[in-house]
């Protein structure tokens, strides 16, 4: 059964140096507060996996917490580059960053294979492109029925998956809605999981019999962190802070301005400070 913890305790108990960590959320419901807690607790030598490394991974990479990144699209959507990620890849600052690069289709399939307890995923992909030349984990299998050669990638099995969701009930069942990305698969594929939520409620009030619900017994730790997805968004609660995404470009461009931002906005803060961003749509 899910355990209700403070975010600090949930991260302390579940995220260890050297872990393979997935923080998922496709533009939506990105677990920023949890990412900041990982930075404050000074985890090192992480391998981070995420389809779309976003500002949150730029921050973790920029503080030197990450040895390796497994990803399929690394940018600040609609704005430009992730400058801390580029500095680590191009210049090795503050520590060199190894990358294992895939396509979205392959990553999505790999999470699904992890959730399905399969060793690898199969897809009709990577045809005529250079990624398989630089990523030895992209291989192939011949279909035993048709002879078609299909691409394969290893299942993603994180040590810990961290997501943000709209709400949990008091038994620890978790509801996600809107753009749900790969979060369900990422939690089910992981050994441990942390879910931060906007609120904990008596009645989950799932809007449809087919709503995306993670039952309590599939979730490790739950922490109530209202506003915890900011500057990403929580459908039905608060919108994406597109202005912050644009402002990040200048903050992250230089090492000094990045370090100053982390000191002021992460190291000197707590998860409770995210509450200022929380709101509930009428």
């Amino acid at each position, binding site marked *: 059964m899910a355990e209700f913890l403070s975010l600090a305790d949930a991260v302390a108990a579940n995220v260890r140096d050297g872990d393979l960590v997935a923080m998922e959320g496709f*533009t939506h419901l990105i677990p920023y507060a949890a990412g900041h807690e990982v930075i404050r607790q000074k985890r090192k030598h992480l391998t981070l996996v995420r389809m779309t490394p976003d500002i949150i991974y730029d921050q973790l990479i920029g503080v030197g917490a990450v040895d390796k990144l497994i990803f*399929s699209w690394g940018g600040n*959507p*609609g704005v430009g580059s992730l400058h801390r990620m580029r500095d680590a890849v191009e210049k090795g600052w503050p520590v060199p960053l190894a990358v294992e690069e895939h396509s979205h*289709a392959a990553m999505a399939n790999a999470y699904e294979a992890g959730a399905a307890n399969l060793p690898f995923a199969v897809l009709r992909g990577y045809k*005529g492109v250079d990624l398989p030349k630089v990523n030895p984990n992209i291989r192939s299998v011949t279909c035993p029925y048709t002879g078609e050669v299909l691409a394969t990638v290893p299942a993603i099995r994180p040590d810990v998956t961290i997501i943000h969701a709209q709400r949990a009930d008091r038994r620890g069942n978790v509801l996600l809605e809107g753009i749900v990305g790969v979060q369900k698969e990422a939690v089910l594929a992981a050994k441990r999981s942390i879910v931060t939520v906007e609120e904990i409620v008596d009645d989950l009030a799932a809007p449809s019999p087919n709503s995306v619900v993670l039952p309590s017994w599939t979730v490790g730790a739950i922490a109530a962190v209202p506003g915890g997805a900011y500057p990403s968004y929580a459908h039905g609660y608060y919108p994406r802070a597109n202005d912050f995404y644009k402002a990040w470009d200048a903050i992250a461009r230089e090492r000094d301005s990045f370090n100053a931002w982390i000191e002021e906005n992460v190291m000197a803060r707590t998860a409770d400070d995210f509450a200022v961003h929380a709101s509930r749509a009428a």
Partner: protein
Amino acid sequence: MSDYTPTEIMTVVAARALSSKDVCFVGIGAPSAACNLARLTHAPGITLIYESGTIDTKPEVLPLSIGDGELCETALTTVSVPEMFRYWLQGGRITVGFLGGAQIDRFANLNTTVVGPYDHPKVRLPGGGGAPEIATNCGEIFITMALSPRAFVEKLPFITSLGHGTGPGSRAALGVTTKGPTRVITDMCVMEPDPESRELTVVSLHPGVTADQVKEACGWPLKFAADLKETPAPTAEEIKVLRELQERTRLKHGGKQGEAA
């Protein structure tokens, strides 16, 4: 109507490539503006799909990211990302994929991964995202990119998504049965693959643009179709709808004009 920018005519001409019958996978970058302009003008029935899982979405403003809440709130339905790539894209349900890119070669292969060697890149670009499988699993591909010698290059440092490979027969040899890129819309001209050589060839020049200017802006010796045409200029209505869309977007995002991602 002559009062329009090169970016505006690129968006308008890209939009015209789409029809109400299309089920279109909207790629990150410039394509989003074109696809929504098509929906708001001549192609009201078009089904727009974004890789975030939003199906038949009708956003009032252009999304900054492909997973903005606007896309989900105005969609017929929103599916998970694994379902999007497995059932809808790989399942062969998409008629057109609309892509942008950082670099393109004469066979419409695209690079959005690195400039320079992969292990020690001069410039680390965002990577492929959905593009590698969009490029082979959609019925056909339209590409829109501004023409410049840095973008239209003789040789790509990295092939992120497949166009026509190294020429005739390349796609078929890889077992790919879809058409691949059939049109490249730039801010100066429209190119299509030559039916024989599969090499991108200029089929129309935008009004006021000369063949020499286009040659100058392309990194390979560019060929021109025998029946080279002039692109019909944007109509007042097309420009009006585009500017209104971008103004709504600017007001909502508090940023510069209609950047989509």
